[in-house]
């Protein structure tokens, strides 16, 4: 077992170290602040804070910690709304809110759940396998840092056009990276999204969500308290991978003329992370750590400055004690390295031996780096010479804050006036062909080829996974207490109207969770946007945050944490604004969760909600190459009522299947509900058309919100109707489950044998990628 070395290694001396004393003697030395991603005004501010030029190591720390990725300098002023618009009632279930590694939500019986979604977009474009793998690794470490056992992951993914020559490289690399890492950690992958759109061609979105479970008393926070307590770094050794990942890679746009940024991508070792999970859980159980922080973006710079500034305010570290994979790393590189599978903890001297015993049991390497002080300074030494002497708050929390200029795009009016006037199939034959085309299209086709590369069974608690509306995992084996999670976003809706787009993303995730029968409790978000230096992108961002914060308030679910990913653009073309919203809901007993498909012959099929002529931004318009107009209306009062109906119906055993209507409208919902268990249905849409004043095409393809289809046992129909009537929610019996004919029969219009529908639905991804 490796322990810390009392004598610095010989290599430590070979550098011409830029000490604090040296910095004072040489105020005029040229520093590479621009190459490290700092702007001139930011560098001047560092000099002002320190009262001298920074040392090379200090410059490295400030440059990563003040990067967009770590400091949220462009987004902070907007994100404040997530806090400002939270009411006391919304905080009822919140144990830990925004600002920690992840939010923690009380789900009852002394249990808590922590969850968060993050991006790893740029690394995944440069090196798809490792980028996606370490995206999973990073979010899982955030969950462990809260004191929780990770229990599930989800991956919302967005790729360029399905037939673009570069797309297979990304799909294969990213999917196998997520699988290779997540499967090796023993975490069931219970859901996510897969979207293809050419707007993501040069900038795919790889978001990763992780969920963890803990008892209330096990919550751990990232702070270094207790003067004299020891600071320890454990897990993998520090190497040269991921240097500048946060500052250079995540905080700048791609440019074809610049060199490849591959060295800035981290390399993952899932086995090391799996061992780290188990050994951290054992540390928590034995109560031998006072504070803990994972090492992600900005590595040791981030961990030391955040732990110190959140605790007693000071820390003293000897950097030559860091265990290295590559002995040639400079102090600045060691501080910036984003090598994976590392954690930093604060341990009392009395617990040091117990800590070491647990490390030894799991064969995890560790080194004692220093101790907590009350000096208010973060002092880092290199072989006894001071190379960093800063107030840690100035590194971790007092970064620049920008009020970036923003304005409504000049092109938006014209875009919103350009409503869909394309092809609207009218007769049975063309409607039938349209449903087949929709269900085989890249965004609506079966994602089994991808999700079957992920383990959804491990841990034995998965009660629902894809393709159901939300992933559901059991938390307590005795009571059946569990959680449901769904992530959603629609970049096209947000492009047409970012304020409404954000509300729609939340509405859909909220509806999906309620569709399975869970009560929505909390929100995490990953806001993926182009460059904040573009005032039009900044306006999209501002509108999105305003919309999401308003919608959270209206639905009564707080944002507990998340991530902002900016600079998602190649050259001058930004991605569609893509706010990925994750909603967490709770079940008293997951045994009552509602699957998305029906099975029992003769059950009645109801459509809940109103269908309007809302085709702008729809999948159908997308298939016809149209993007314009206004997205569907988000009526959050209706969403709340619909959710209440779905939750009650689940709790009281009134419904046996429920599927929400979103992209692809009723056509997609009926197809998916029938294909889920291979059981057909006879559907009549004429009464619907009459009631809502629409044509059959609109009935099938409109993407009006606040809708779901459910199947109801005959014995429960009266009760179900009474409930909907009492809540004054539109409900219409549109058909019956037909387990005999093996077809989706839209009576008077067309019949689609399920075999034919399934073949079309399942062939698309294998045709392109297998």
């Amino acid at each position, binding site marked *: 077992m490796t322990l810390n070395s009392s004598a610095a290694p010989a290599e430590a001396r070979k550098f011409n170290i830029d000490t604090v004393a040296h910095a004072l003697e040489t105020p005029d030395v040229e520093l590479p602040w621009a190459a490290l991603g700092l702007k001139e005004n930011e560098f001047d501010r560092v000099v002002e804070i320190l009262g001298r030029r920074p040392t090379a190591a200090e410059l490295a720390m400030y440059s990563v910690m003040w990067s967009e990725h770590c400091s949220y300098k462009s987004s902070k002023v907007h994100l404040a709304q997530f806090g400002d618009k939270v009411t006391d009632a919304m905080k009822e279930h919140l144990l830990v809110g925004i600002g920690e590694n992840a939010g923690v939500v009380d789900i009852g019986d002394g249990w808590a759940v922590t969850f968060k979604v993050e991006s790893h977009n740029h690394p995944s474009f440069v090196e798809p396998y490792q980028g996606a793998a370490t995206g999973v690794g990073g979010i899982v470490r955030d969950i462990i840092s809260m004191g929780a056992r990770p229990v599930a992951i989800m991956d919302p993914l967005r790729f360029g056009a399905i037939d673009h020559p570069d797309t297979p490289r990304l799909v294969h690399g990213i999917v196998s990276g997520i699988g290779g890492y997540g499967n090796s950690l023993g975490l069931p992958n219970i859901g996510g999204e897969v979207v293809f759109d050419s707007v993501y061609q040069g900038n795919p979105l790889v978001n990763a969500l992780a969920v963890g479970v803990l008892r209330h008393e096990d919550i751990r926070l990232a702070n270094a308290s207790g003067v004299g307590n020891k600071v320890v770094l454990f897990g993998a050794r520090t190497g040269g991978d991921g240097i500048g990942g946060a500052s250079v890679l995540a905080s700048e746009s791609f440019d074809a003329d610049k060199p490849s940024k591959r060295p800035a991508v981290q390399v993952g070792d899932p*086995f090391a992370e799996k061992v780290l999970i188990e050994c951290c859980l054992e540390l928590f159980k034995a109560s031998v750590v006072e504070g803990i922080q994972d090492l992600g973006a900005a590595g040791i710079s981030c961990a030391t400055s955040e732990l110190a500034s959140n605790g007693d305010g000071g820390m003293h570290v000897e950097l030559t004690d860091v265990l290295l994979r590559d002995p040639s790393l400079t102090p600045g590189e060691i501080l910036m390295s984003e090598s994976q599978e590392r954690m930093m903890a604060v341990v009392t001297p009395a617990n040091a031996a117990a800590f070491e015993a647990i490390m030894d049991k*799991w064969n995890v390497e560790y080194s004692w780096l220093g101790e907590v002080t009350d000096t208010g300074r973060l002092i880092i030494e290199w072989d006894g010479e001071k190379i960093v002497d800063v107030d840690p708050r100035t590194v971790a929390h007092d970064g620049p804050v920008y009020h970036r200029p923003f304005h409504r795009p000049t092109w938006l009016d014209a875009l919103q006036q350009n409503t869909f006037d394309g092809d609207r199939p009218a007769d049975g034959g063309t409607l039938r062909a349209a449903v087949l085309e929709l269900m085989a299209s890249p965004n609506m086709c079966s994602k089994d080829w991808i999700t079957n590369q992920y383990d959804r069974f491990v841990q*034995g608690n998965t009660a629902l996974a894809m393709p159901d509306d939300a992933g559901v995992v*059991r938390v307590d084996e005795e009571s059946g207490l569990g959680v449901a999670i769904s992530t959603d976003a629609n970049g096209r809706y947000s492009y047409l109207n970012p304020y409404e787009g954000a509300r729609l993303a939340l509405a859909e995730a909220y509806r999906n969770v309620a569709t399975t029968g869970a009560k929505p409790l909390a929100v995490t978000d990953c806001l993926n946007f182009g460059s904040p230096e573009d005032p039009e992108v900044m306006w999209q961002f501002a509108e999105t945050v305003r919309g999401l914060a308003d919608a959270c308030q209206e639905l009564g679910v707080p944002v507990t944490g998340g991530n902002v990913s900016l600079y998602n653009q190649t050259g001058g073309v930004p991605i569609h604004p893509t706010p990925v919203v994750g909603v967490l809901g709770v079940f008293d007993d997951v045994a009552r969760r509602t699957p998305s498909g029906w099975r029992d012959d003769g059950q009645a099929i109801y459509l809940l909600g109103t269908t309007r002529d809302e085709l702008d931004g729809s999948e159908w318009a997308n298939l016809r190459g149209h993007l314009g107009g206004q997205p569907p209306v988000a009526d959050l009062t209706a969403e709340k009522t619909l959710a209440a109906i779905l939750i009650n119906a689940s709790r009281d055993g009134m419904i046996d299947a429920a599927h929400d209507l979103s992209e692809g409208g009723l056509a997609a919902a009926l197809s998916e509900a029938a294909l889920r*268990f291979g059981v057909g249905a006879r559907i009549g849409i004429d009464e619907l058309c009459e009631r809502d004043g629409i044509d059959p095409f609109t009935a099938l393809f409109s993407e009006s919100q606040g809708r779901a289809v459910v199947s109801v046992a005959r014995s429960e129909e009266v009760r179900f109707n009474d409930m909907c009537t009492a809540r004054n929610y539109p409900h219409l019996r549109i058909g019956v489950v037909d387990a005999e004919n093996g077809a989706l029969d839209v009576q008077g219009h067309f019949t689609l044998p399920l075999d034919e529908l399934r073949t079309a639905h399942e062939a698309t991804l294998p045709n392109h990628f297998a």
Partner: protein
Amino acid sequence: MTLEADTLNSTLDSVRVGIVTFPGSLDDRDAARAVRLAGGTAVPLWHGDHDLQSVDAVVVPGGFSYGDYLRAGAISRFAPLMEQITAAASGGENALPVLGICNGFQVLTEAHLLPGSMIKNNHLHFLCQDQRLRVENADTAWTASYAAGDEIVVPLKNQDGQFVADERTLDELEGEGRVVFRYVGGNPNGSRRDIAGISNAAGNVVGLMPHPEHAVEAGFGPDSSAVGQVGVRGGTDGLGIFTSVLKKLVK
């Protein structure tokens, strides 16, 4: 519950089944749950110990025992506990019953308790799906609850699941009735002769790639079952593997 069933249950409860945990084991807690649901007592065993804790049977669960960067199971076979397991499992008909699932199967082949080896799936992807199997041999310690020819559905999930062996070994396995499980309805990974699981000559050691421990509890298993329609994730066809060994040990 009848008095007889009560007695049987309390007797099954006395059977101690050890579940080995390597640093990278993933399905160890699931295997323990399966033993409990079958009525037995699960006993956690640590790979680094030299102590089998007088268990009556052992399950080597799935996962990535040591990361499997070299070859699945290649390092685990040298774990201290594997010495004890190999010795105890090699004593003929009344030797310790050992079940290797997925990575555990790979470990048992590396330890030479079972012949053959697993290579990467022929399609080169990790594959997770509900898998139909036929029980070819119902005389082993782990399959006595089934009848030969029975079909079961249990989850399959692996990247290195393609069973390979030389022709002579394959003929020997077939000839001696040591092919215990065979894939039905399509070979998911290119395994020779559709073999999903095998046993040693005495029948106390069985290895299989699919995961019976993930088809033991209604609501959390596969969506289908070979016995007919089941509820959502209601497949429990794998439970028989665990009841087999408990009943055998009670007898």
